[in-house]
């Protein structure tokens, strides 16, 4: 069985981010690129399933990214993914949710899969719209927000997180799921994994390879603004700990925060 995990490559979470005012795009050069942290949970979920399913199950990474960034995927290969595919085309730069999901769906058709696992969100774009849209493009059942996955015969069972608990749902494969951080902390890459990752393949696909050409994003970014500066903190001065704690507690209660 083939599990495909979609992985976005995002700027280092701790890096100072900058938006180019002319292209209105995030500047991705001059900073470290990392795996989207939410996708590491998707990979963890896939590797857990692979461990249960046995050796004929493979985990393939699929990333739409500039080819120059593809080495970032080695970390995910070192964690245990078997191989990777990068969908890379200048014409895909600046894609919105609709275009990204259509392109990934097209690539998934080309690669072939039994199960697609996505992270719930991308750290940079933060739309959370791509997983559902891919499922729609492929006519797949889409189980979002899953905290636990289990493959039983030709079906997948998932526990979906909701505000008031979780739902147990099931659907036949092939299917798409997106996971939450409750699937388990992403494992460390082992040293054997790191040494072995250099021998694993990272294939490249272009827009024409998957029959995805002459498309343009449907949404347009009009403007952007940095988050409002934080208002000045109020410093509580108190003669002792208990008085200080009381003052902070009163402050929070006034605002109905406790």
């Amino acid at each position, binding site marked *: 069985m083939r599990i495909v995990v979609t992985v976005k490559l995002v700027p280092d979470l701790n890096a100072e981010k900058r938006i180019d005012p002319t292209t209105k795009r995030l500047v991705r050069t001059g900073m470290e690129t990392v795996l989207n942290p939410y996708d590491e949970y998707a990979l963890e979920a896939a590797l857990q399933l692979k461990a249960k399913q046995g050796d004929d199950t493979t985990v393939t990474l699929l990333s739409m990214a500039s080819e120059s960034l593809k*080495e970032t995927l*080695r*970390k995910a290969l*070192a964690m245990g993914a078997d191989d990777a595919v990068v969908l890379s085309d200048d014409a895909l730069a600046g894609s919105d949710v609709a275009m990204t999901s259509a392109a990934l769906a097209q690539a998934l058709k080309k690669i072939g899969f039994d199960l697609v696992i996505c992270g719930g969100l991308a750290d940079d774009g933060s739309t959370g719209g791509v997983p559902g849209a891919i499922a729609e493009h492929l006519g797949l059942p889409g189980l979002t927000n899953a905290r636990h996955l289990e493959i039983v015969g030709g079906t997948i069972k998932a526990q979906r997180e909701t505000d008031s608990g979780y739902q147990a749902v099931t659907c036949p494969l092939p299917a798409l799921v997106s996971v939450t951080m409750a699937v388990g902390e992403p494992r*460390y*890459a*082992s*040293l*054997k994994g*790191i*040494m072995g*990752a*250099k021998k694993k393949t990272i294939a490249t696909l272009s827009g024409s390879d998957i029959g995805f050409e002459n498309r343009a994003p449907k949404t347009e970014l009009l403007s952007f603004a940095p988050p409002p500066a934080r208002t000045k903190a109020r410093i509580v001065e108190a003669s002792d700990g208990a008085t200080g704690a009381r003052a902070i507690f009163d402050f929070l209660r006034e605002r109905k925060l406790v």
Partner: protein
Amino acid sequence: MDFDLTPEQRAIQQLAREFAEGEVRPKAEEMDREERFPYDLTAKMAELGFFGLPFPEEYGGVGGDTTSYALAVMEIARADASTAITLAAAVSLGAMPFYLFGTKAQKERYLVPLAQGKQLWGFGLTEPEAGSDAANCKTRARLESGSWVINGTKAFITNSGTDITGGTTITAATGTRSDGKIEISNIIVPQETPGFARSRKYRKMGWRASDTRELSFADAKVPEDHLLGVRGEGFTQFLTILDGGRISVAALSVGLALGAYDEALKYAKERRAFGKSISSFQAIQFKLVDMIVQIDHAKLMMLKAAWEKDQGRDFAYNASLAKLYAGEISHRVVNDAVQIHGGYGFIDEYPVSRMYRDQKINEIGEGTNEVQRMIIARMIGI
């Protein structure tokens, strides 16, 4: 010239850093306070493959190089020196002799479980009355009807008495050479050998979570095939082991110094005095600058020696330089880090207090500063 690490070296350093931050750092203070050997961290390091880093896959290793191994030790030492020495001694002193001098059968039997981190092994060179002068070995082994019969004492042996220690390889006098000097050989002594006993753990100033013991041999008997390598080559063998060990001790010193620098930099930004952040005082800034200059210098020397070893070149000179210099700068760096912390630096909850205690052994173990200078003096022809 190329200062870039390979992608694998970078990935291994990154993994070691994540492991040190996520798993080691949160436990360091408690392990030190309770003098508790890091069994849990040892098991996790084993699972990730750290103990097999520089050994080939056929012997249970991961096929990495010296540079990756040194970077891993450095990153772990940045969080905790006790955990770092447990790893460094296991690899450079415990497992390496089997890899370098063992027969194929000895490698399969002893090296494989060590490279997998399932077992630890000691390297017993130092004796109560032979440290710097390690060739003055008083422990004797005589061959008697197919067995080595060993008598003597070894002092300060790392990883020699944990629940997962398989044994210790010791140097012993096995006779007299034709030139009248004592003949030294390395002998493999498994833990269960009758007549071989370990003392309680020493109570130490630093490296308090690591396992260090005195070993005694009273007619301890091992089969004749427990000789490591060739009879009479024990002296050259341990010199070779110590040459390589110096790279990891240098890495340990650099890591410890980096850890102290991290703490001092953070504290200097937080702490206020005279209405200002103490990091705005030039006296504090200069200390921090001098710290990082020395650390980077020592790190470059350490990496150069590691690189030479990976290239198959003679690395002994640079390994000695790096060990000496990294040991000495780590002393100055931890001292300044405590100074920047003021009174809090003297209080055990602050990591710099532990680092200050952990540092001193870096100038003593595996060749004191003085011995290092003697070695380098010989190398520069005086």
